[in-house]
């Protein structure tokens, strides 16, 4: 019984690995530093649940002009869809994000660039 308990504990620890659910951006569409056709929406996936009240996104063109976004967060709290209110013209863009983690109360920030051809 002790061996079984130890095995369950070790299995659970190994399943989690050392990856803490400290909220960070883990995936984006379009991907960082990629170039491609204009997407209808930007889809951002975070490693943990983010809190809408303290989460913000800013999209700017290479010349600094801001593009207004409509953002919605999925029920799991991790996937955010940012839809530009105007179609994206050819050029370079930078998306800046600020997210607050529901789990540990931390704030994380970041940005990535992508191009439209």
């Amino acid at each position, binding site marked *: 019984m002790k061996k079984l308990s130890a095995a369950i504990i070790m299995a*659970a620890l190994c399943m989690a690995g050392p990856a803490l659910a400290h909220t960070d951006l883990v995936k984006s569409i379009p991907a960082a530093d990629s170039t491609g056709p204009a997407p209808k929406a930007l889809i951002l996936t975070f490693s943990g649940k983010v809190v809408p009240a303290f989460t913000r996104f800013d999209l700017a063109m290479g010349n600094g002009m801001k593009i207004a976004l409509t953002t919605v967060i999925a029920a799991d709290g991790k996937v955010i869809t940012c839809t530009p209110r105007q179609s994206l013209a050819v050029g370079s863009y930078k998306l800046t994000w600020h997210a607050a983690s529901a789990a540990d*109360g*931390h704030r994380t920030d970041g940005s990535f660039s992508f191009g439209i051809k």
Partner: protein
Amino acid sequence: MPPPPQMGIAPTGLSRSGSNKDVLGATVIVLRFLQYSGAMILLGSSLFFLYALPPEGHCAAKSRAWPRSLLACGAVLVFSGALLGLVAQTGLLAGSFSEGFTPDNLAAAVTQMNFGASAIVRATAAAILFFLLAFLAPSRLLWMGSAAGGAVISASLAWMGHGAGTEGPAGLFHLLGDIAHVLAASVWIGALVAFVFLLLPDSGDTQSDAALYNALRRFSGIGAAAVAVIVLSGLINSWFLVGPDRLLDFCTTAYGRVLLAKLVAFAGMLGLAALNRYRLTPALGQALLPVASCAAALLALRRSLFLEMLAALALLGLVAWLGTLPPITSGL
């Protein structure tokens, strides 16, 4: 199949100056330190009154003035630290201190974030304890109630930082490890605070010195058990927050450096605790013999316990800071 429900995010950007963020960040750390300190007193000191001091007589906790005042101070520290910490942390997330006061932001912090909900639990428990301590006569039942409330408050600290930050099947182990860590630390540091109060006045009466000696002996076994739990749960927490394959990042991340400083403070406390247990307490026992004088033994104990208390305060400050830093495993 209907699409999942979605929630809107405010489209506005944040404007925040760096200094504003730094001041708020430092305020959050100070308020976390106050909550840790109060929690240690409420649980650890209350338990100490029960297991280490005699139940009756003039050496009993209920016969002295300071135990009840000490616990009431602990409750005030937790209450004020929890509510002000809630506002400061909310302000830090929202962009300014004033934003931390807005009902919408506070509601989001309390209903959607672990730190907000746990702050309300701590503030409520501390308020109840304060009134019990203020209006009830000192008794063993009061110390038991205070210890129970202190245990709830101490355990809730796990939700204030990284303790509840791991998802998936192993998240429960991390959470339980964090709760065990803070409970054991409370038992040790709360007892240390009580020892400092016991040693502050130079009683000059043999009965008080004998009570102190007995308290030291009773604490020694409990202290050793607390250290064992702290080490074991600390290893579990490190698995999640440092990671077995990131040990080399200890010196290259802020989290790693603060954790190293915390381990140094812990090692210092351990060394002093060993000195107290194996050298200074037996020396006091010898000094209690009719032909000897306690003065030198008490002075040595006083110095050692004050140093241990200083190390404990430094450790709590580092823990308060540590909880605000991204752990090594976050890769930030």
